């Protein structure tokens, strides 16, 4: 196995550890921190089942964003849905045999790559063109969009221009998962693609990408509107009653 292959193997182990452990620590932190007061944004569901539905609408359809800004919703929703499809398409590199439903969405995954790029381009354009969005943007906002765009572009480039040996790539990743390392094809475009993906995995738990787990812990969205029916008391607040 080449030196570059070894570097990438180690990089992906490291990136995976950072992503998984980083997210686990963050999520555990969110879960451990109490929400002392009932603060759902009302009107809110009055039952846990209703809350699950509200959260599902929020996570799947971006309901609040739709109310807030239709343009951002179009680009943002397009990007996220396409990203999900692209990720599903990539599962074929990690499964043998490829799962039935993953095989089913393969053609959609390619279409989604273009949709993803279009959504990201729209979000980037909005950040540059709309005065108030430009005002609130910091360098990392642009960098994140550019990073995702480059991941998409390098992936598409491999599909259409600088073709790589995808069978070997699959062998490489299956090898990583089975701790039986296999060579990685020596293609610069593949290196770029993998490098950027590893970078994304590493920054995920330390960046605004935490909005992904964060939304599930948002008290204004995940609390039921039932404060008169049951007493909601955080442990630190209960101690005040014993004084």
């Amino acid at each position, binding site marked *: 196995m080449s030196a570059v292959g070894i570097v990438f193997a180690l990089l992906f182990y490291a990136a995976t550890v950072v992503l998984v452990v980083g997210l686990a620590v963050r999520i555990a932190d969110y879960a451990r921190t109490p929400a002392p007061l009932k*603060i759902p944004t*009302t009107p*809110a569901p009055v039952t846990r089942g209703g809350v699950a539905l509200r959260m599902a609408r*929020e996570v799947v359809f971006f309901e*609040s964003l739709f109310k807030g800004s239709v343009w951002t919703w179009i680009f943002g929703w397009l990007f996220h849905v396409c990203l999900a499809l692209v990720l599903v398409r990539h599962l074929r590199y990690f499964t043998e045999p490829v799962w039935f439903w993953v095989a089913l969405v393969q053609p959609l995954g390619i279409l989604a790559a273009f949709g993803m790029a279009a959504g990201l381009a729209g979000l980037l354009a909005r950040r540059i063109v709309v005065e108030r969005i430009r005002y*609130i943007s910091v360098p990392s906002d642009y960098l994140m969009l550019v990073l995702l765009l480059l991941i998409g572009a390098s992936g598409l480039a491999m599909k259409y221009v600088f073709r790589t040996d995808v069978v070997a790539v699959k062998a490489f990743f299956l090898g990583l998962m089975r701790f039986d390392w296999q060579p990685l094809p020596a293609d610069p475009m593949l290196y770029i693609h993998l490098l950027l993906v590893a970078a994304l995995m590493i920054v995920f738990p*330390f960046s605004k990408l935490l909005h992904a787990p964060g939304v599930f812990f948002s*008290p204004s969205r995940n609390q039921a509107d039932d404060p*008169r029916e049951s007493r909601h008391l955080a442990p630190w607040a209960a101690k005040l009653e014993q004084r």
Partner: protein
Amino acid sequence: MAEVKAPPLREFPSPPPLAPGAMDTSRPYVASDKIQTAIGFPGELSDSWEQRAIDHMGALLGKYRSLKVFMDSCVHCGACADKCHYFIGTQDPKNMPVARQELMRSVYRRYFTLPGKFFPRIVGARDLTREVLDEWYTYYNQCSECRRCSVFCPYGIDTAEVTMAAKEILDAVGYGQKYTNEIIGKVHKIGNNLGLPGPALADTLEGLEEDTKEETGVDVRFPLDEKGAEVLLVTPSADFFAEPHVDSLIGYAKVFHAAGVSWTLSSKASEAGNFGLFIGNYEQLRAIALRIREAALELGVKRIIVGECGHAWRVAYSFWNTLVGIGAGGRDPFAVQLQSQLDPSVRQPTHICEYTWSLIQRGALKFDKEANDHRVVTFHDSCNVARASRMGDFPGGQFEIPRAIIRAVANKYVEMAPETTHEKTFCCGGGGGLLTDELLDLRVKGALPRMEALRAVADGQGVNFMATICAICKAQFTKVLPYYGFKMNMVGGVHQLVSTAIRLGTHS
């Protein structure tokens, strides 16, 4: 202060262009040493305040999941950017909710995240300097904690939570706001926000009994501290003498009279408002709410009803059960002590509108609707009622019940534009502890979106009365309506309309 002028109404309400720095000198008076120490905060900024501020921020991040999640989750998408009435009215970009949050988030990143420690410029992190702290004081005192931005945020980030945390940190380092903290001192010392002592309150209520007798010929009572009454009414102290608030108090009294229910006010709990909310301080919030619990226990009432007040209803509805056990479902001794006394067959606490509406539904109240025919009424949803509480037993009851009452007592009712009502309602511009004279310029500008919507129905459908169920809304509109060419007495309470139309005298 320069002359305060209303901004021009926009022909087509669309996001305004930015005017950086437009409001960077708008600041409320700082609380004096005496005001601060009276409620347990340091008197002034002293050495090592930076470290204490960061330590306090760390403590809040450990106590409030909202703050922790909201600090991490924002992606700067800008969905909230054009939703704040203060941004619309002032055009100052730091009044965009995301930019207001960023004043704190930039500090959070610097001290509590790895990228902020190592690459501050890239992620927009900065040290907590005196300039930054002053900026916090300026712009967190330009947020009325109305939660409108949280409706549109894909992660439900509520700027009110961030503003409250900022005010809590400012208080903790001795940089409090005079208006709010002075009032909190008064409520502890005297029992209400306006500093009206018990004997003066008794006098006022006696006067109201005489006035009402003169007006109606009926002996409508305004009882104070009557043990054994069925209902304890807790209402904002402005209801005792401010115009138009007092007309709603007369309305509540007439409703109780017509229903034949014994009720009482309390000199100890002569204030529904709880400014502890505005400064995000749990201990203050709880200490102020404890007065209500104590009054209810002493008077032995079966039911607690809250008068027309927006943030008070948020605290009562959403927090009282948590803070002091006014509600149901408590299993601990502290909650059970009170909850076993209260009538379990009705919701505790009850909003006066829920109470009046239940009487109307039962046919227990009769009205001469024609008495309100000189009014063409619209309804302004108050932010804390709309987005932080509920009435009745279905989501959105807080919108339907006040409107149902208005339709039951008045013939002419008109809705304002839908993007300015219900959950999308605009704040009056005076909430969150900003109802103070030195912020008048901000308050007038913040009222712009509501004034635009009111202008449309005033010119189009002849609306001449805007009903609302919040003491702050009433006081704020009374003050700012004239700046927009409206009469100040155009605003009033829902129970003011009830008071005009209700039939007294016989009840069974």
